[in-house]
């Protein structure tokens, strides 16, 4: 054959080899790696020398007063949720402060806050997650349990004196028990509040109330009469135009009507967060709240407000900005709010209406026909520990460190306020930010010029390490202004926090089956709730059909299963 022919043959062979190589490489990419395969249940570390390298108070100190300092310098890895409002800087004073106090350096893996949940899932599933994973909300740890990658922290609580002493002293055991899984363990270390912190309530134009000698409402009946009076005085204004598409409003109203959270699910947020039952303590059983008479009363109340033109129909659909804009421009007088939103409202209204030309305040949580109740938990987002932590030779030190930073008064104060004498001073339980430092986000020294921002420049007050209003009371109140403090104290004084419902200990399959079953029912409930409130379906004539539909969709089966699992697990314990 000619030269061309031989070249073709050579080329064909080369091509075949290359093709083979491509297949081989792609096959190699599929081969499983050794790590992360064995699914084993977490066992507390027992092999390493106890208290290696860690010195801590031996027996008893006051809750949250166990201190800690590692004998030798150690490094632990941590997943950090980066808030773009104050992005992480490597030269933050926070890192040095932690190092000076504990001899611990943190190897931080930065994840943008917006993608924190996704990245966390990927890293845990692949076995690459760092040892300490904060900002985990109770419930978020559940999908990771079967992978064996996160530790059953309930087994480790006895090695964490600050955490356990605080749970005991602040009566949080029943709250902590809501985190239990079927195997009797829990997998996330929740952050703790000594006092229940109420954040969401109704915000009202107190200057208009005062002008017309109207008293602040204390119950939902009061709210109705206040709105009615306002409508009479200002017939062109719909006095209550709500935000969060009524989801938060129903959540606030739930305790007073149904003794449970009855929030709605909206496009923007889930104010219901999986709440489906009212736990009847006397009967020791769970009742499906959407078909209760009390829920009908609640919906009828709001439907009356809408019918009489007191609650703006558009509340169900308008965006938060639209609702806020109406309130800020004086086109409505009541809106649901939380403490941080109050700051924002005031700033905007200063600009729009003018400082001093208006006054706003939060109402007490309105009492309802079921009582002056509060429903909620004193637990907040917490920390997961991964298998990597257990394999760390300094595991015991790691536990003590986590215990100190998030659960000891000293650690929490350092993370929140910084260095005493330098960034802040405390006198008689009152904390002040020193001159030269500012933190406008918390309203501290907001007008200081040329001051260092506590969060942006120094890293203190960072959401990964602190709670805005959690921990021991003194610390919780330290950053609140007097108004907030008075509000919380008043609420806690005049309202009763209902005890948390017991946990229904499903196993994995049961939980999945229940979730699948209840989803369409709750979607229907959500939909009909809006219809009833907006008057699209008359509540008196349509209620029975609605209850029937719920039952057809499976609400009774769901409730029965829940109650039987609950009774069984009670017997087993």
């Amino acid at each position, binding site marked *: 054959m000619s030269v*061309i022919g031989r*070249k073709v043959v050579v*080329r*064909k062979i080369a*091509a*075949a080899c290359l*093709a083979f190589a491509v297949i081989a490489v792609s096959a190699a*990419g599929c081969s499983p*790696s050794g790590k992360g395969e064995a699914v084993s249940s977490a066992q507390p570390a027992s092999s390493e020398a106890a208290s290696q390298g860690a010195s801590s108070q031996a027996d008893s100190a006051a809750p949250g007063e166990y201190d800690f300092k590692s004998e030798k310098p150690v490094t632990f890895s941590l997943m950090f*949720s*980066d*808030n*773009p*409002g*104050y*992005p*992480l800087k490597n030269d933050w004073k926070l890192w040095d402060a932690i190092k000076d106090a504990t001899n611990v350096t943190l190897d931080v*893996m*930065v*994840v*943008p*806050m*917006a*993608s*924190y*949940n*996704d*990245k966390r*899932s*990927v890293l845990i*599933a*692949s076995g*690459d997650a760092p040892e300490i994973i904060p*900002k985990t*909300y109770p419930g978020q740890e559940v999908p990771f349990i079967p992978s064996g990658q996160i530790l059953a922290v309930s087994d480790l609580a006895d090695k964490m004196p600050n955490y356990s002493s605080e749970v005991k002293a602040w009566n949080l055991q029943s709250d902590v028990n809501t985190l239990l899984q079927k195997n009797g363990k829990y997998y996330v270390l929740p952050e703790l509040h000594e006092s229940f912190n109420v*954040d*969401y309530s109704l915000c009202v134009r107190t200057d208009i109330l005062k002008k017309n000698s109207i008293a602040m409402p204390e119950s939902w009946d009061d709210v109705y009469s206040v709105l009615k009076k306002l409508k009479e005085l200002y017939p062109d204004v719909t006095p209550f135009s709500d935000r969060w598409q009524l989801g938060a409003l129903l959540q606030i109203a739930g305790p007073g009507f149904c003794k449970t959270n009855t929030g709605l699910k909206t496009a923007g*947020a*889930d104010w219901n*967060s999986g709440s489906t039952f009212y736990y009847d303590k006397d009967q020791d059983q769970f009742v499906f709240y959407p078909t209760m008479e009390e829920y009908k009363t609640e919906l009828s109340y709001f439907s009356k407000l809408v019918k009489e033109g007191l609650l703006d129909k558009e509340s169900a659909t308008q965006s938060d*900005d639209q609702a806020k*804009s109406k309130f*800020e*421009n004086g086109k409505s007088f009541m809106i649901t709010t*939380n403490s*941080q*939103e109050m700051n*924002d409202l005031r700033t*905007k209204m200063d*600009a*729009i209406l003018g400082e001093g030309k208006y006054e706003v305040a939060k109402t007490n949580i309105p009492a309802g026909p079921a009582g002056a109740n509060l429903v909620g938990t004193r637990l*907040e*987002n917490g920390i997961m520990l991964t298998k990597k932590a257990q394999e760390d030779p300094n595991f015991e030190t790691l536990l003590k460190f986590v215990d100190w930073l998030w659960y000891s008064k000293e650690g929490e104060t350092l993370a929140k306020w910084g260095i005493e004498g330098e960034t802040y001073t405390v006198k008689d339980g009152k904390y002040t930010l020193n001159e030269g430092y500012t933190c406008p*986000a918390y309203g501290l020294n907001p007008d200081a010029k040329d001051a260092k921002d506590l969060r942006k420049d120094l890293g203190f007050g960072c*959401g990964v390490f602190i*709670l*805005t209003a959690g921990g021991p009371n003194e610390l919780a109140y330290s950053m609140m202004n007097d108004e907030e403090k008075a509000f919380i104290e008043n609420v806690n004084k005049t309202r009763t926090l209902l005890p948390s419902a017991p946990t229904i200990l499903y196993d994995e399959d049961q939980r999945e089956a229940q979730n699948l079953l209840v989803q369409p029912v709750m979607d229907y409930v959500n939909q009909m709730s809006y219809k009833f409130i907006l008057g699209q379906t008359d509540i008196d004539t349509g209620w029975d059909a609605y209850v029937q539909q719920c039952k057809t969709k499976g609400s009774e089966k769901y409730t029965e299963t829940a109650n039987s699992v609950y009774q069984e697990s009670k017997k087993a314990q």
Partner: protein
Amino acid sequence: MKESASYRVFRVFNAILLLIVVAVTLFPLLNVVAKSFSDMKYIASNAVTFYPKGFNLKTYRLIMSDSMFWIDYKNTVVYTVVGTFINLFMTTIFAYALSVPRLMGRKFFTGLAVFTMFFNGGMIPNYLLVRNLGMRNTLWAVVVPGAISAFNLIVMRTFFEGLPRELEEAAAIDGMGTYGIVAHIVLPLSKPILATMTLFYAVGMWNTWFGPFLYLDRPEAFPVSLYLRNIIAGASQASGTDADALGEVASNVKAVTIVLTALPIICVYPFLQKYFVQGMTLGSVKG
């Protein structure tokens, strides 16, 4: 040829309709640009429509003084240049090989490429693959996965098939090898498709954020699209404390970041849009 009356009516209606579409499309863009130059006060009271109120450059100065923004901007440029080059190179040689009729296993390789258009390994297997190949936290994690877009591949292959075989045969007779043919005959004739593909890939690489988010851990390595996403997307958790802290990143900051990130692409588009239009139809007609 004289236009009939009905045709003239059509033209008028057509023009009006298209103007409406233009206005509807343009308004959000103008709104964002206007917000970026406006004072916070007017944005809060929804007073800004499509021209700035309370014109100021404060926010621009604020963003431009954030060193992380510029570092990420530089990263985007690097990723785009390197990524586009790699993408283009890989796609061209694959497409050309597939376009040769006598390739052994041609159907198989084409099928392989098309298969990836429909089936994906999923987020975690992809992550494991990249990690096991040691590409995590490097430039390669951004530019290599997804280097060949199956869609672009098919378009290029069709184009190459459309080139006359006779040219290649003539060159072969004169003693040119395969690589010579590609370099001296095929590529010079493929300028339109190469230009189009460069543009497609460049825009894709400029905007990509998911790969970098997944495979990169250090903020200094992020492209500016990820920086932007973090500011705009907001907190994915329910906590009131963090979500409201995020609200401090005011809407004018978001607007400014959007403008600065999109600006280069918007500037380049008018000059290259004719290639885009050409490119859309290039792969479709054979012979």
